[in-house]
Every structure is written in structure tokens, then in C-alpha cells.
């Protein structure tokens, strides 16, 4: 009987090993199939002049780019540059969102002026919220205070909730004349544009968010960096093509790996699936419970784990440390100890839970201190293109 359990644990290890390899291969394949450039080359140059790089860079969480090269010069010379990246307010922020905001905050420290569109129109069109009112509530009560709590500089941060910034729709109308329906369906597929609103959103509104900083109101054409998850790549390609048609500078792309779901490291952490995500408003008890039930890279028999080791690259628990713990040396030490079986799953969960609870509790304290969001909101009227429509 004992032997049978050991055999099962060995099979479990093999399955998880396969999963671990397929995660690595997934990103490598994406680099090739989407003709993205490997970020490691840029990373080597950044290390030449940055006193320290962010953990998202050192751990290769940022793994690909398209035309990031000019930004290395802006960063080296301390010049201001522009970054646009938003999110869909269908749920409170979770740790997957935090990866993006950690990156935006780091870029801001390096000189970026940050534009954050909160795409509540998209949440509504995609059926992720019941009404625009609900998505507005989540945006103003949960998301924007949470973003501010990360520590963004109000002078260099411009947040706008799409449905409350109607000028952007005028810009979208102006842009839409350059985009054919056929092009949009080729890029996104018919399913992604199965109603008129989605079609307008994907063909023009999203492009308006990306291209807006190049309007006269914001100083005219400029290099713009768009940090995205790999699934957003088609938007960037479309935006680059349309920018060229409009005599604007094609936006650059910085691609980061997604924070894996708590249930399956091969899937993205999703706000609409409660059990897959740790939200930034979760209580310590809930966090403890979620991590306790998370998918791990370890096998269920301790002796087999000690012998074969864990698989940190296929472990939803370790990935929480990898994506969020700021100390490279510590994370590497845990990685090695877990991989060679010295650190048990139980110990890893305790270390991770302790860290995540402290981090989120601290975030909630900072969020509670946010009393006004006004100075972060973009209100500038957009009218430079009016004569053209």
C-alpha cells in the first residue's frame, strides 16, 4: 500500500514537472510567434547604469518588448517619458493587478508620466459588471484609492474613468475612421466583437486611450510605452498601425508575465473567479485560507518531496513570493531550498502567508489614509482634433 502512495506521488511529480516546463515554453513560444524581442538584452544595458533594478526585471517577469530601446536613453538621461496602462474595473484589485502597478510605480521613479485609464465601459460591454454604475462604484471606491495607496506621485499620474471622461469618445470617433471592421475582426476574432459596443471599444476606444498622450493638449507626438500582459498584444499591434496612419509615433510595448491563478499556475489570476485570486481588500483569514488551498509545486508525500524536491516554477504559492517579495536574495534562497526539498510545502505556505498578509494589511492601511482622489483625476478637455471631424 505504501509503495502505491509513493508511486502516486512520483506520478504527481512528473505531471507537475511537465506543467513547469510548459509554462517556460509558453513564454518562449510567444516571443517567437508574436515577433517580440527578448527583454534580457535591454536588461543587461539597464544594469549598467541603474543602481538597482526592480524585482520584476531581475526575475524576468518583464520578458519581452517591442521598441523599448528609446526608453533606455530617456531613463539613462533622467528625461521624462510617457506610459499608458489601464485596467478593467470588474472587481477590486488583486495581486495580478498589483504586478502592473508595481511596474508603473517603478517606471514613474525612473521618470515616467503615467496615464491610467479605468475602462469601466469595457467591463460593462464584456458583461463583467451588471451596470456602468456598478463599475463606477468599484472604480472610485476600490480601485482608485488602492492605486493611490501604492504611492504614485499626483503630479505625474493621470487617472481617468472612461465613462466620466466623454472627450475620449470624441477622440475615438476621430480615430475610428482609420480602422476597418475587417481589420478589427482579423486582429481580435469575431467573438471579441459580437456587439456594436465591443466593436467600437476594440477598434477605437482602446486606441484613443493609447494615443491620447500624443495629442497637442499633452505636448504632441511622443514615444509612449504601454506595459501589458501578453494577451493585450493585439491591441498594441493595432495601435501601432493606426498611429502610423495618423502621423503619430507608434507606441512601444513592454510585456510582463501574468501572475498565475491560485488554482492553476498556467492560468491568469482573475478578478471574476474569487478562488483564483487574492484581492487587496481580502482579510488575513481569507488570505490564509486561500493560500492553504492553493495549487503547489510539491508532491503530497513528504519523503518524496524531500527526495525529488519541489517545483517552484509550477507552484502558485511560490509565485506569490516571486511576483511580490522585494528581496531577490531571499526569494532565490527560498527557490533553492524548495527546489532541493529542504523546504517543505507547509513551511513555504507559512512564509508566503506571513509575507502576503503583512503586505496586504499594510496596503489596506495606506488605502484607508486616502481621503481625496481629485488631484489624480484627469480632467483636461480634448479638442485639438475637433476641426478634423
Amino acid at each position, binding site marked *: 500500500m505504501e509503495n502505491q502512495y509513493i508511486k502516486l506521488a512520483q506520478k504527481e511529480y512528473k505531471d507537475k514537472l511537465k506543467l513547469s516546463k510548459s509554462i517556460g515554453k509558453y513564454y518562449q513560444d510567444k516571443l517567437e510567434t508574436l515577433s517580440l524581442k527578448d527583454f534580457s538584452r535591454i536588461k*543587461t544595458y539597464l544594469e549598467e547604469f541603474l543602481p538597482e533594478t526592480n524585482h520584476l526585471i531581475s526575475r524576468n517577469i518583464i520578458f519581452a518588448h517591442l521598441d523599448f*530601446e528609446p526608453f533606455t536613453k530617456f531613463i539613462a538621461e533622467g528625461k521624462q517619458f510617457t506610459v499608458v496602462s489601464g485596467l478593467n474595473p470588474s472587481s477590486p484589485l488583486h495581486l495580478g493587478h498589483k504586478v502592473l502597478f508595481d511596474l508603473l510605480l517603478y517606471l514613474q521613479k525612473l521618470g515616467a508620466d503615467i496615464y491610467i485609464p479605468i475602462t469601466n465601459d469595457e467591463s460593462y460591454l464584456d458583461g463583467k459588471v451588471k451596470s456602468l454604475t456598478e463599475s463606477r462604484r468599484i472604480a472610485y471606491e476600490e480601485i482608485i484609492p488602492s492605486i493611490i495607496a501604492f504611492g504614485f506621485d499626483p503630479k505625474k499620474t493621470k487617472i481617468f474613468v472612461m465613462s466620466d471622461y466623454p472627450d475620449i469618445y470624441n477622440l475615438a470617433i476621430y480615430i475610428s475612421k482609420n480602422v476597418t471592421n475587417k481589420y478589427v475582426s482579423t486582429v481580435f476574432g469575431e467573438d471579441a466583437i459580437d456587439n456594436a459596443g465591443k466593436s467600437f471599444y476594440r477598434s477605437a476606444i482602446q486606441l484613443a486611450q493609447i494615443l491620447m498622450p500624443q495629442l497637442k493638449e499633452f505636448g504632441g507626438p511622443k514615444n509612449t510605452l504601454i506595459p501589458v500582459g501578453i494577451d493585450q498584444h493585439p491591441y498594441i499591434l493595432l495601435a501601432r498601425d493606426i498611429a502610423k496612419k495618423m502621423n503619430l509615433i507608434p507606441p512601444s510595448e513592454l510585456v510582463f508575465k501574468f501572475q498565475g491563478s491560485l488554482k492553476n499556475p498556467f492560468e491568469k489570476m482573475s478578478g471574476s473567479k474569487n478562488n483564483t485570486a487574492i484581492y487587496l481588500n481580502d482579510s488575513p483569514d481569507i488570505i490564509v485560507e486561500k493560500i492553504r488551498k492553493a495549487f503547489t509545486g510539491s508532491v503530497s508525500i513528504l519523503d518524496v518531496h524531500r527526495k525529488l524536491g519541489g517545483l517552484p516554477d509550477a507552484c502558485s504559492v511560490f509565485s506569490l513570493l516571486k511576483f511580490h517579495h522585494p528581496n531577490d536574495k531571499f526569494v532565490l534562497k527560498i527557490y533553492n531550498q524548495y527546489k532541493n526539498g529542504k523546504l517543505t510545502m507547509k513551511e513555504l505556505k507559512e512564509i508566503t502567508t506571513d509575507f502576503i498578509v503583512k503586505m496586504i494589511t499594510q496596503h489596506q492601511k495606506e488605502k484607508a489614509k486616502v481621503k481625496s482622489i481629485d488631484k489624480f483625476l484627469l480632467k483636461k478637455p480634448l479638442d485639438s482634433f475637433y476641426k478634423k471631424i
Partner: protein
Amino acid sequence: MTKNKNLTINNLLLNKHLIYGALPSIEDILNNIIKDKFIKLVYGETYDQYGPTIDSLKYYFFITILNNLLKGKGIKATSSVIIGDLHSVKNRIVKNKSNLLASANSRLHFVEKIRQTYNLNINPILMSELFNDFDFKQRLRKITPIFQKSEHLKNIARKTVLKNKITQEEKIGFQYTLEEVALITGFNIKIGPPREIYYDQLARIFSKELGNKDFFGLYLKPTYPIGLGFDFFVTHPEIEKYGITPYKAGSNQLQNNRIILGITGLMECKKLIDSSFVAKNSSLPNPVLDIYLISKMAGYFLQNKELFFDNTVIENPELLRKMAFKELEQNIYIPLNLK
């Protein structure tokens, strides 16, 4: 190279600052060298209207050091520096072809001056002279039909030319490439920049066909333009990977970012060194390091002292700039009477 009196072939060929790699490998060269009694080394270069670069010296110095070490092992060695006069004017975009061809002798005199100043063991020779050589003609006659029948060989030859010139070269049966290959198969080890690997792949294949000894390619680290920021290399991945042509000052139209002997003044060199990207990471381009290495090798020949590349200098960007300039002035500009 460490500070010791026993500079060996091994530590020369394994020097990470100088050596890029080899065809088929450094290990193969090292294994083969000890079996041989006679080795013919060769380095070939073309030139342009902008004048001789300091980067050519790296190859003259290196080939001599290797030659001397081989002799120290009891191996008879020759070192030829081929001046590619005929091939310098083959490119369609080259203007004043007759002037350039006529300047072959002044180029030869320049190499001769370097040879005498540093007491180098090199034999400069014009390509046009070698083309009249019976053995060369014989080799070219033998390899041409083999090449014309083989799509595999043509595929390699295509890699020796720029993409926009492939059609033109196809039309003339890759004549330039075949002449080059016929020429170098008369030697055993060719020293050159990494970009020349495809010529050497063909040369290895043809050496077997001709029943010659094994042919090897040995590549020094690429040459990079000087006086440019890191952003230039970030935005030019091709140059980052292969560098520019060491012996052509106008390579990639970067003649203003080269040290051209007799043209670039010493103070201009200082400006170029001071404004240049100096990487701490040895995998990144470091043109100032190259100036330091070339100038140190020059000093080695002038003073007959140990060849020593100081790591405390190499690892400190500001010290490297300072020492590169100092060694350049003392070991190259003053001895060659340049200003």
C-alpha cells in the same frame, strides 16, 4: 592574460578580452597546433578612402604574438597580412576606384611602418600579387566547379554578402567570395573578425576537397565605434553582435567614431574615449577596452616587457578611460609620430 612570464598559446587563445571564438573551436585549434610542425597564419584586410584604423593594429599585433608563441614551441610559423587591393574596389558604391587601387602601395607602406616600429613578425603582401600566383589560380580552378554544383555551398556563400547584394553576387557566381576562399585555403589559420566565419566555413570544406591540412578560423572580439553612448548599441543590435569592419574606417559610415591613424588627432581621441560607452559587463560592447588592449600590446612590442592587461583597470570605467588614453599616447601616437 595574467601577470606572469609564461605567456602561452593556451592563455592567449583563451583570453576573454581578446578572443571571440574559433571555427570549429579553440579547443580544436589548440589540439591541432601541437601536432603541427609548420603553420601558416594569415590576416587579410581591405581598406577605404578614410585611412588606416587603429583596429588593424590589433590584428597585426595579435598575429605576431601567436607566431612568436608557436616558434617558442618549436613550430615553424609564417604570418601574412594580405592587403586586399583588388577587393577594396569591388563594391559598387566605392567611388574613385582608380585612386583607391593606386593607394594600395601607400597602404603597404603603412603596414611596413608599423612592422618596423614595433618589430613585428608579419609579411604584408598585396592581393593582386597573390592573384598571379600559380597555386592560387590552381585552387580557384579546382573549387569553382565544385561550388557551382552545390546548393549547400551557395547557401553558405550567400551569408558572406549583404542581403541587398545577393542577387548581384549570384549573377557573377559569387566571384568575390570564391577568390577570397581560394586565397585563404593557402593558409592554415586565418585570424579575423567574427563576421568572416562564413568564408572560413567554405574554406574548411574546400581544404578537405583540395587535400590540404585542416583549416581554422580564429576570431578576435568585434570592433565597435568609439565616442557613442550605450543607446547607439541598444538601437543597433546588429552592430552590438558583430561589430563593424575593423580595417575599414568608413564601415557603417561611422568614420567619425573611429581612431584613424594620421587623421584623428590625439585630443580628438581623448574626446572620443571620454564620451564613449564603457560597459562593466564584459558581454557588452566596450570600444575603450579595445583601445587599451591594442595600446598595451603596442607597449609590449616597444618595451619588450610582459604582456599584462590589468583587471583593476579593466573593471573600473574611469580608470580604463584614463589608462586607455595614456597607453594610446605613449605606445602608439608618440612612437608613430602622430599628433
